[in-house]
């Protein structure tokens, strides 16, 4: 199953709704291109909704880290929303759960940018 990202704006925050698998190849590239396009348009407050992402491999984890550091380096912020248990567990064992700001409710995620 391929990866799909769609974006929407809520109170100045860009919410990226992702679905599918973030894995080496197409999935990672889709996420990378989406974040790059948003930054190019000056949209630097990004809330990545991973509710429908049921699988991430190490390349996908690397892509999340890359997106996070790229956005931060451009003066923005990237937060994660609605992790599935599998993704949550992966971020726990890789110690990245404390690196990312993770929210489980969209309104709280949007407010966290202000």
């Amino acid at each position, binding site marked *: 199953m391929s990866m799909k990202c769609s974006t929407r704006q809520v109170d100045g925050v860009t919410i990226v709704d992702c679905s599918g698998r973030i894995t080496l*190849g197409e999935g990672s590239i889709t996420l990378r291109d989406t974040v790059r396009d948003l930054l190019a348009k000056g949209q630097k407050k990004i809330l990545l909704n991973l509710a429908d992402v049921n699988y991430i491999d190490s390349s996908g984890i690397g892509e999340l880290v890359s997106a996070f550091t790229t956005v931060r380096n451009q003066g923005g912020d990237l937060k994660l929303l609605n992790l599935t248990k599998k993704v949550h567990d992966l971020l726990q064992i890789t110690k990245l759960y404390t690196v990312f700001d993770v929210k489980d409710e969209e309104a709280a995620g949007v407010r966290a940018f202000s």
Partner: protein
Amino acid sequence: MTEQRVSYTLDSTLETVDNAEQTASRIAAEAGFDEDSVMQIAMAVREAAVNAVLHGNAYDPGKKVKVDFENTGRDLVITIRDQGKGLDLAKLPDPLAAENLLKTSGRGIFLIRSFMDEVEISPSQTGTEIKLVKHVHGEAAGGKEASQ
């Protein structure tokens, strides 16, 4: 319990990675592992296949990846072999070290070790072999013969 062994010789492509993962998932399910274990085994195989295709064979069309699945009744043993220059284990970073947390790569072997009961990595100048073992707990069913 029916013991079984099946081998695949695959091209150095991303399709190989997906095929190895899907085959691992099917064989692990047939061996009677629960859903979480099936996911862990499939992910470990995927990561090992990624290493073989990318870092070992470097997508070289002249080099193959060999994947063996063996259900011994006690264990599911998966061996993945590439034809690259051999992984340098001394150069593997600790992905949990503070200075490496924000690195974008280097977590594959760590995830494999996290998900499998035993992992043996045997690098040589003619390639790297990685052996993954998951113990079959409880009542496991011998699966059907795999084919491709």
